[in-house]
């Protein structure tokens, strides 16, 4: 059955490691839904959080193929994890819009980071589904620009 899986991948913080991972996904025809690469508590190690869609067989293939890359230390398919995503979004076409947007932002505890004459830029961190519904609510006001960070995740204890 096709579903979304979150992979947490510990890699050497080497030149080209992202290219190695991305190249593997591309040549083996695996789809990346989102990818986040960031430093960890160890300076030489980065963590990639990769969201992929597929059945369990494909995910197992991805995991096994990734493990063959020399720069990869660990690949975990996350089941019980805290997942978070960050969004920057600018919306609104009039001063009136802006006020309504601020109301919605308060509801979600989104933070205004840049205010223009008609539009406003907000930032929000949360579960991806929360971000989805936030975006849906802003749609009627006209979304001017937006960027999502891709999911980051850590396993629960």
């Amino acid at each position: 059955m096709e579903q979304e899986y979150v992979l947490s991948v510990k890699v050497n913080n080497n030149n080209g490691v992202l290219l190695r991972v991305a190249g593997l996904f591309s040549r083996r025809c695996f789809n990346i839904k989102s990818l986040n690469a960031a430093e960890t508590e160890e300076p030489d190690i980065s963590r990639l959080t990769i969201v992929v869609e597929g059945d369990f067989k494909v995910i197992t293939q991805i995991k096994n193929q990734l493990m063959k890359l020399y720069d990869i230390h660990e690949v975990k398919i996350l089941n019980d994890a805290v997942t978070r995503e960050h969004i920057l979004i600018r919306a609104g076409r009039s001063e009136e819009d802006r006020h309504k947007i601020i109301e919605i932002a308060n509801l979600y505890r989104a933070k205004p980071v840049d205010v223009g004459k008609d539009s406003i830029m907000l930032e929000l961190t949360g579960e991806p589904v929360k971000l989805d519904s936030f975006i849906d609510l802003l749609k009627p006001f006209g979304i001017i620009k937006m960027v999502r960070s891709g999911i980051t995740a850590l396993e629960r204890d």
Partner: protein
Amino acid sequence: MLLTGADIIVECLLSEGADTVFGYPGGAVLNIYDSIYKYGDRIRHIITSHEQGACHAADGYARATGKTGVVIATSGPGATNLTTGIATAYMDSIPLVAITGNVSCGLLGLDSFQEVDTTGITMPITKHNFIVKDIKELAKTIRLAFEIVGSGRKGPVLIDIPKDITAAAAEYTPLGKSVPKQAENANEDDIEKALEFIRNSQKPYIYAGGGVVSAEAETELARLAELCDAPVSCSLMGQGAFDQRNRRYIGMLGMHGTVKAAEALNECDLFIGIGTRFSDRVIGEPAVFGKNAKIIHIDIDPAEFNKNVEAQATIKGDVKNVLNTLCGKIEQKKNSWTDEIIARKCNEPVQKGTADFPVTPEAVIRKLDELTNSEAVIATEVGQNQMWAAQYYTFTKPRSFISSGGLGTMGYGLGAAIGAKVGCPEKTVVNIAGDGSFAMNLNELITAYAHKIPIIEIVINNNVLGMVRQWQRLFYEKHFSQTTLDNRHIDYVKLGEAFGIKAFVIAKNEDIEPVLKQALEISKTEPVMVEVKIDKDINVLPMIPAGKPVVNPITEINLEA
């Protein structure tokens, strides 16, 4: 001691036991070649005609000896010329270290003369690659490259070294030979599950791939076959993993496997795949592969499990260790099916010549087999020649069949045979080529002559690209598009002479034995070439069309139809 980067490279190669390297000089590797000059009494360098030939030679050397092959090339075109050879080694899991020069660090990224992104280009065809931008990292990196090559599933690693790094000096302390990482022991539950399958089977069938050769597990394989009382097939890459004189051997399995192997596949209740990746050229239609059988898959690389076919039991581990463990736990089995299938008379096709071209590849290869006592190392090119070599020579030992299985590289065999002969000078080494493949890299005859590498080059000449022609006949309404080569008119004897190589022609059946005997005699001291003239419509049979179930192979093609 204070050494230049180039000297460090040679010192590291020597400490890895790599005393023979193949390569081609050029601007970015001038310093390395200066060190090869200085170390000339300790390291043997074989210059080929082309970097591709050097890479195939290093690969053939590795396949024939089991050691890691080393190839050196310059930046830019030197490096790109290696890529076919590296990809060939990668697909067949061959231990190979490729060392390329590059422009100096300050010139990297500026589209400098003969600059190319070598690590970028070779990323998908190596286990790993490095670019060394700090001379302090050089020795460590080379050692690590050899470690990666030999750990787990083997394969090529490339080290790209900018020219200024080879010129700079650094303190060098020998680090000692690299030690490949040992595979973890197999999971006990997995072993138990496989054992249960084996105990409960009445019709077990063993299928061995190149992983058995790579793991040097031929003795364990033979023991397992005895204990399970199973018939055995090998993949193309597995040729020689099982002594084909053994009564249990029922031929190759797959697209051009035997009829008997196809029957065994469909009748068996347990299919034991060992050191194999279940290539599409073997499994045909995955959904019905071994449809009456449970499948056990044993391999060092778990990424091969359930990739192409679903296995009901998988064992990850070093094949030699796994087979040893299994053998220690199996009680001797006895299966009546095994005796029956071994004795069965199947309708295996026999090649026939024509009035104009009476000689068949089958007759030549079988005679070669007889005259060499099944002990030669046989390299091949790719296409019909490759399949005929696999079908008609009797491989009795691992590392005796040297062929590009995965990538299917035409032009591979001559370079590979040269490498194999350099690695195993005491063995008879024959490259079985077709006229198409021969023309691709025949320049390496120059290498064989210049370095006195006495291989036998047999060119089976049908004046067509026979394998493609065969597919055009079967699937493209006999549109022989660009596969007819009979306007070439090559005089192989003169061609050989021009290179300083004696050459002979087999055109009649009476020529086969005397010419092969003469070639074998000459090959004691110098390379020799034999052209075998055959009809253009001798096909490779049996045949299973690509992607179709491995059932009822085609054993006859009506040329009149």
